[in-house]
């Protein structure tokens, strides 16, 4: 255990931790949204994210960008990136809607037990992971370097590069977008109504099924956009990337208070920082244990998370 590294590399670890957290946030928002509305943990949300990453790669294939090309100019990068993020968001969003329709809709209408919904979710998650594992032949997918990663400037030990800034801006922008939708749109009103009380909202004329579908769509779009940022930053993916990122994102959502959008953001940054610091001190191989331990601890000590929302009444 080396604590000295915390001091010497503090700025770098902190900055990288926030960047990692931003990526988790994009996925965590999807978890928290669906939970708020359905009281359901969408186990397969991580695979929706994974589908997004695969779509990003597919776009580069279609555009003919080889893995070894030089980074693009800012102009062409913007164009390519917009294309990627649109394609990924669309793919993930549509996948999410299909997922809801196939795996959850019937159970919701039949008012089946939570157990059934959870098992169905797990089945869907495994199905999607395996499907892509077979498609990719279990290999890692390498994503071309689209943008130059030379540091723009340096703060103490931290290297601020373009892609990191992109991730931070992206997460913040999407968060504000989501807030707008939730609080200032009809859909958002519907989401808030259904998450508060489904039966009454139906009585008040809300089409619950449509709200649910649209919630999944929204969550999927967020995950898809997040996957675009993920790919630019990490430049690699594989079939089970969903599991690895999903557990962290889910922990982040729970840490902040599941069902709470602001909580998801706070939880994500917090978790990102904790992961970076603990990796440096304990060694990277203990990182997953730390994540799980945090998850378990939060659920045991304060299940409502940092922002202390009641489990029953989710607030977006």
């Amino acid at each position: 255990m080396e604590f000295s590294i915390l001091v010497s590399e503090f700025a770098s670890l902190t900055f990288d931790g926030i960047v990692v957290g931003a990526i988790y946030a994009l996925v965590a928002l999807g978890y928290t949204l669906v939970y708020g509305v359905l009281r359901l943990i969408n186990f397969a949300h991580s695979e929706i994210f994974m589908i997004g990453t695969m779509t990003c790669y597919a776009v580069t294939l279609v555009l003919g960008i080889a893995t070894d090309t030089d980074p693009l100019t800012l102009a062409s990068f913007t164009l390519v990136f917009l294309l990627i993020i649109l394609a990924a968001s669309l793919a993930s969003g549509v996948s999410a809607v299909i997922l809801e329709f196939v795996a959850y809709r019937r159970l919701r209408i039949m008012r089946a037990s939570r157990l059934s919904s959870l098992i169905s979710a797990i089945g869907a998650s495994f199905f999607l992971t395996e499907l892509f594992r077979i498609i990719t032949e279990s290999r890692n997918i390498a994503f071309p370097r689209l943008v130059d990663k030379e540091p723009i400037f340096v703060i103490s030990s931290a290297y601020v590069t373009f892609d990191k800034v992109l991730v931070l801006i992206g997460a913040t922008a999407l968060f504000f977008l989501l807030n707008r939708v939730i609080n200032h749109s009809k859909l958002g009103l519907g989401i808030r109504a259904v998450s508060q009380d489904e039966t009454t909202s139906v009585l008040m004329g809300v089409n619950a099924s449509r709200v649910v579908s649209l919630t999944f769509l929204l969550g999927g779009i967020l995950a898809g956009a997040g996957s675009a940022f993920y790919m630019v930053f990490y430049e690699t993916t594989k079939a089970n990337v969903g599991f690895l990122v999903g557990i962290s994102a889910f922990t982040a959502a729970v840490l902040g208070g599941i069902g709470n959008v602001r909580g998801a953001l706070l939880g994500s940054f917090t978790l990102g920082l904790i992961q970076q610091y603990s990796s440096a001190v304990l060694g990277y191989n203990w990182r997953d244990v730390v994540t799980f331990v945090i998850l378990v601890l939060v659920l045991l000590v304060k299940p409502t998370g940092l922002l202390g929302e009641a489990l029953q009444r989710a607030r977006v």
Partner: protein
Amino acid sequence: MKKILVLFNPRDRFGDWWDRATSLQRGMFRLVLIGLFFALPFINNPVIDTPETSFESVLFYPLVMFAIMAVGLNVVVGKSGILDLGYVAFFAIGAYTQAVFGIFTDLNFWLVLLLGMGFAMLAGILLGVPALRLRGDYLAIITLGFGEIVRIIAVNTEAIGGAAGLTGIPSPPPILGMEFSVQDLRPYYWLSLTILLLVLWGIVRLSHRKPGRAWEAIREDEDVAAFMGVQTFRYKLWAFVIGGAIGGAAGVIYASQILSIEPKMFELNLSIMILACVVFGGMGNIWGVIFGAVLLGYLPEKLRFLTDYRILIFGILMVVMMNLRPNGLIPRKKREVILEKI
């Protein structure tokens, strides 16, 4: 087609005959059935043989091993309604107990078996006491985390082999003159079959008594059960502990056969597969669960070209089962279904 899928219940048809049969008939039936299973290695033929792996090996693992674990998980998930996604942890604990004590000490196999079950039960308590205060999804996630934590600790702890695991695990001592060796897997199969029968006997007995009824009450509606005076926490913990003990026992026997273990053998996938057996067979129904385990263990080996798609199919299966037949292929007894309607 849908009607058949939803209405056909083999358990009911069989159940009617069973109710009318005399104790002699029942005893005879049991004897023949058990005899048939024991004789399976001898009536092996190209029809039932598995192409790439040896039939005896398949009988032992995954068939009977899955069956034992499915029965154990059934106590937790099926009977008590607690979704446990980390069941593989108990299996791993049992296996590592056999490995560590078998390699580094001279303890008798049967003692190690008890130790393995003991450690697994301890783990069940350690996990259950804090976790069982939560409900549904959160409980499931915690059990998932627990399963993963156990595996990662195994990977990172050099003392129990680390990532490379442990090799040179001893086999059980000869029983009834039969040697346990790598070449002949039949004694392992018979041993585990016997253990399965013992476990079944124990569980069936429990189900007819207070614990079984308490579990059912908790599964149907925990709050009402608590109102009616059922000490829900205690019985849930019991379910956990018993399920854990069964998983641990399976692990001990598995390790003694496979001679070397590594953490990679105890991944989340295995928990999901056992869960699939329970779900597919019929949650809460012991016979359905065993049927599910046998089917889901045997088919991928028989149709080996499917093995690569095994988990894919399991995933679809779980979604389809939950949506079309949430009570499994062989659901719980008729009278329970009737009670549900009320």
